[in-house]
């Protein structure tokens, strides 16, 4: 039997097909008679559509139809909804512009779809897309986030371009703490706008069967169940029972494949209208303009302290850019996934945060790996570092002084969350040891002898995963539940088919969940198959985002497996002529306590399906159980990241010499997979800190629309990461897991920037810390 237990580095079951090219992604699927779609997108950011002529395009070779935003409106398709209703501080509902599936009369960002050309080949569709003539009357674009609120309104229904003015925490107490404090540290910062860049671009095939009137949508989704609900309930594409969404292998998402977008929706509508299957695969250039972007905040922070550097109050004012429309989860990102995290790992007694969300003539902004939590961790860990310098305290010491202690759990923060468990000193201490903090001053001297400026930066982050519970989220404006479904089907021969509402975009669900279930049953993971991503096979499920797969989806499977074991015990009791209370299940055997009588898991499975020796009068045959799991609380992964850099004073180039991450993810199923998640997250965090920047010009044109200009991190930009773990189990889910998917991207950016400012002896540095920015900072500081 192969390794299988929880905590073992089992190789990924899915990698054989991925590595040998046998994966099946949406674009690999081709249906008989399928047509191809190409979207006509606006080349301008803000304009009235004065007229559109589709006649030449419609008549072009190979074209089946040209469908426009006007026809979408005529068919009465609903607005693409934002799934979270945030209320302003005055109690009013957020202002939500109508988000058409395709624009009919007005353009609000570059790349907005205006029409869809359906043709016999992709080339014909693309060629004809250039023949659609559109008369745009341009309007000045609103692009700059800081001046958006004083610019002309983009939508009459969103006055001041402000979606909401949200607040959380005690304003008066926080302001009093700041007024009366011995010292107040103040910083301003931006959280740079990012473009997600999953390796697999978005793609879809919509297939409407005119005979059965079933609509099947194959698509690159992180949450097919949720997509089906939105397309049914809000956009009214098809009734839920006639709509099947299949997400086959998906190549990365990082949030960008959570959302229900114009293109997939338009495709489904067009397939139904034309009665043929239609395929669309985004070109990379489309991904840049049409996938939801991430981050994009400007923030002012004040931190009040007593003489010893104990935190007394934190005041945060943020403007968050939502882009042109409110994407699926966007409203929740700079509010409930951001303001609630501002206590960090610290016992700050007074916290107040206000967030103005603004619309601009740019692509919609939504959740991107970390979603609100990186923005919170960044400002907090930046201001703590600056405070330490202003107070002449070691950056480690100021953190220790303010940590929530292990004895303080459960800990109620002033910003709504209750942390269940943690040991922040433990991860800090382990990270300090791994990073050899004691030896840093020697290394700094040695670097100086080579003409390099060396710096070290810390980040003691916290995050909240597995957004929950449903009722609390609902009271805060969530439009959906936040549970997960799972089903464990034991087959007659004792192998197991596991169905989950979680959706892998490469994380390794097929291995981790197999390991979880196999260890429950004491069987080999080779005997467990995990199925996901098809609403035709699964119960309604909520999908994968917010590091929720294991903590919520895994918990559902754990509960379902417990039900299987409970039923197995009843079967075993009958077969072994014992009382069910006397049956123990361990290592794959049902055993009568204090006896040598036992039945294997496989024998019980067989008996359940071939019920000849079976208590049929009391027990149904079969061995298949379901569970829906709604968590009692978020989970709270936390840890310490330490970054050590060297800066070339002549060029400003930042070289990351060492990056140490010690994370507490609670109980870990597969450390290899977890470390992979941490590595990827750190790479993205370093990308944000040093390289990535989405830039629009003042007319709303995207300047960073290709890899020539948008800088993704590459292997040679990164050091080999030092990764360690500590463990305080989650107290409220059956696994004890906390989630690990986003921590790397949350914890790392402030560590990098703190290391750079430490190296240069300066207080401020915006992301991305490009070589020119660093060089200019040195020029200003007189350091070069």
């Amino acid at each position, binding site marked *: 039997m192969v390794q299988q237990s929880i905590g073992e580095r089992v190789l990924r079951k899915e990698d054989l097909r991925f590595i040998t090219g046998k994966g099946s992604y949406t674009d690999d699927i081709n249906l008989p008679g399928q047509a191809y779609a190409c979207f006509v997108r606006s080349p301008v950011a803000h304009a009235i559509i004065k007229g559109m002529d589709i006649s030449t395009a419609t008549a072009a070779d190979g074209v089946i139809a040209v469908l426009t935003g006007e026809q979408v409106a005529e068919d009465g398709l609903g607005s693409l909804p934002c799934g979270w209703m945030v209320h302003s501080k005055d109690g009013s509902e957020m202002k939500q512009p109508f988000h058409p599936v395709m624009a009919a009369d007005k353009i609000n960002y570059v790349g907005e779809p205006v029409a869809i050309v359906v043709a016999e080949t992709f080339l014909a569709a693309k060629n004809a897309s250039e023949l659609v003539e559109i008369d745009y009357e341009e309007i000045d674009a609103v692009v700059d986030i800081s001046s958006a609120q004083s610019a002309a309104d983009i939508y009459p229904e969103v006055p001041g371009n402000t979606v909401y003015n949200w607040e959380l925490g005690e304003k008066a107490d926080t302001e009093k703490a700041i007024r009366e404090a011995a010292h107040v540290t103040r910083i301003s910062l931006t959280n740079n706008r990012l473009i997600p860049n999953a390796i697999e671009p978005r793609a879809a095939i919509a297939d409407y069967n005119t005979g059965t009137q079933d609509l099947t949508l194959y698509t690159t989704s992180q949450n097919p169940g949720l997509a089906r609900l939105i397309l049914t309930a809000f956009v009214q594409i098809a009734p839920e029972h006639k709509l099947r969404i299949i997400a086959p292998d998906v190549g990365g998402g990082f949030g960008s494949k959570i959302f229900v977008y114009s293109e997939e929706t338009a495709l489904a509508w067009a397939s139904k209208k034309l009665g043929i299957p239609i395929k669309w695969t985004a070109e990379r250039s489309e991904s840049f303009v049409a996938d939801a972007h991430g981050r994009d905040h400007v923030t002012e922070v004040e931190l009040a302290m007593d003489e010893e550097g104990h935190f007394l109050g934190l005041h945060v004012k943020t403007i968050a850019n939502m882009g042109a429309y409110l994407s699926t989860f966007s409203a929740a990102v700079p509010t409930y996934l951001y303001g609630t995290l501002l206590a960090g790992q610290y016992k700050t007694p007074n916290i107040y945060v206000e967030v103005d969300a603004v619309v601009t003539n740019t692509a919609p902004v939504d959740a991107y790996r970390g979603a609100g939590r990186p923005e919170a961790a960044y400002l907090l860990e930046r201001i703590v570092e600056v405070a330490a310098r202003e107070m002449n305290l070691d950056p480690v010491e100021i953190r220790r002084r303010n940590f929530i202690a292990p004895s303080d759990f459960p800990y109620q923060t002033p910003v709504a969350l209750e942390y269940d468990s943690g040991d922040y000193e433990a991860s800090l201490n382990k990270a300090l040891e791994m990073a050899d903090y004691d030896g840093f001053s020697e290394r700094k001297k040695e670097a100086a002898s080579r003409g390099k400026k060396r710096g070290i930066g810390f980040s003691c982050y916290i995050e909240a995963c597995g957004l929950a519970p449903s009722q609390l989220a609902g009271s805060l404006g969530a439009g959906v539940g936040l549970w997960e479904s799972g089903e464990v089907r034991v087959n007659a021969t004792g192998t197991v088919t596991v169905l989950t509402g979680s959706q892998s975009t490469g994380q390794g669900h097929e291995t981790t969940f197999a390991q979880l279930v196999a260890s429950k049953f004491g069987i080999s993971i080779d005997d467990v198959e995990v199925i996901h991503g098809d609403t035709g096979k699964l119960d309604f499920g909520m999908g994968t985002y917010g590091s929720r797969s294991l903590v919520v989806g895994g918990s559902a499977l754990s509960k379902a497996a417990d039900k299987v074991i409970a039923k197995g015990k009843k079967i075993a009791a009958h077969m072994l002529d014992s009382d069910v209370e006397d049956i123990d299940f361990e290592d794959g055997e049902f055993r009568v306590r204090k006896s040598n009588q036992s039945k294997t898991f496989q024998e019980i499975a067989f008996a359940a399906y071939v019920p000849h020796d079976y208590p049929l009068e009391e027990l149904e045959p079969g061995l298949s159980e379901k569970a829906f799991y709604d968590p009692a609380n978020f989970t709270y992964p936390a840890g310490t990241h330490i970054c050590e850099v060297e800066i070339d004073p*002549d060029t400003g180039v930042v070289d990351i010499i060492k990056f140490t991450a010690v994370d507490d993810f609670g109980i870990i199923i597969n450390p290899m997979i977890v470390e992979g998640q941490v590595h990827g997250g750190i790479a993205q965090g370093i990308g944000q800190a040093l390289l990535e920047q989405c830039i629009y010009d003042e007319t709303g044109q995207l300047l960073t629309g290709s890899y*020539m200009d948008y800088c993704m991190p590459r292997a040679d930009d990164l050091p080999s990461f030092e990764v360690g773990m500590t463990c305080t189990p989650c107290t409220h889910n059956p696994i004890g897991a906390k989630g690990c998917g986003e921590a790397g991207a949350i914890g790392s950016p402030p560590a990098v920037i703190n290391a750079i400012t430490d190296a240069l002896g300066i207080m401020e540095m915006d992301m991305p810390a490009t070589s020119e920015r660093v*060089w200019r900072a040195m020029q200003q500081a007189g350091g070069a």
Partner: protein
Amino acid sequence: MYEFTYHKPQTIKDAISLFAKADDGIYLAGGHTLIPAMKVRLRAPTDVIDLSALDGLSGIHEESGALVIGALTTHDAVATSEVVARAIPALNKLAAGIGDAQVRNRGTIGGSVANNDPAADYPAGLMALDATIRTDRREISVDDFFTAMFETALEEDELIRSVSFPIVESATYIKFPSPASRYATVGVFISRQGGQVRVAITGAAACVFRCTEMETALSNNFAEDALDSIQLNADDMNGDMHASAEYRAHLCVVMAKRAVASLL
């Protein structure tokens, strides 16, 4: 990509004749500039004339004091060539730093030179080494070759056969790559021969150029500090979202000093 007609001539004569017949023909060497531009529909030639079957246009050899590299020689072939390593190892280094492995396996010296991208590496090497560009009809001195951004002295249908580099005492190339594209934000190529120093800079301005101030200073005193007083005029530099003109002007001097240091 728009539809186009593909040709694969066997002789230079046929290639030129196909070019003459085409409405809007273009030669294809490695294709690593042309194909991406065609894919995003920025280029729409009616006829693509693939040069890969032409004989005698690739290969590297020494010829009376010069290193001669055939136009269709890939960057990888130059990067790994022992002949280049013996003659002008700086060209190994230059070629090894172009793009990534995929680009180097397809991209060619002739294609790069004919394209004259202002951030390409080869133009700096040709200029600092006083190379001669041999075409199907003549020889062109490098000082007359690179005329402006994406423009050269080549006639529309003219084909480069090879580039001839005089073998110099020493030379090096130092590049400050753009983190995104890995093209040169600034690239400085320096060669020394008989007390004469040639300095060519790519990436910094609209077109590769010889920096005469640096050449004079280094010909008098080949030392890093000879460049201390040199400040290039930012007005002559490119400025974009990746690097301002001022930063590029600064980097030119820093990279030149590093090049000098590596030759001492």
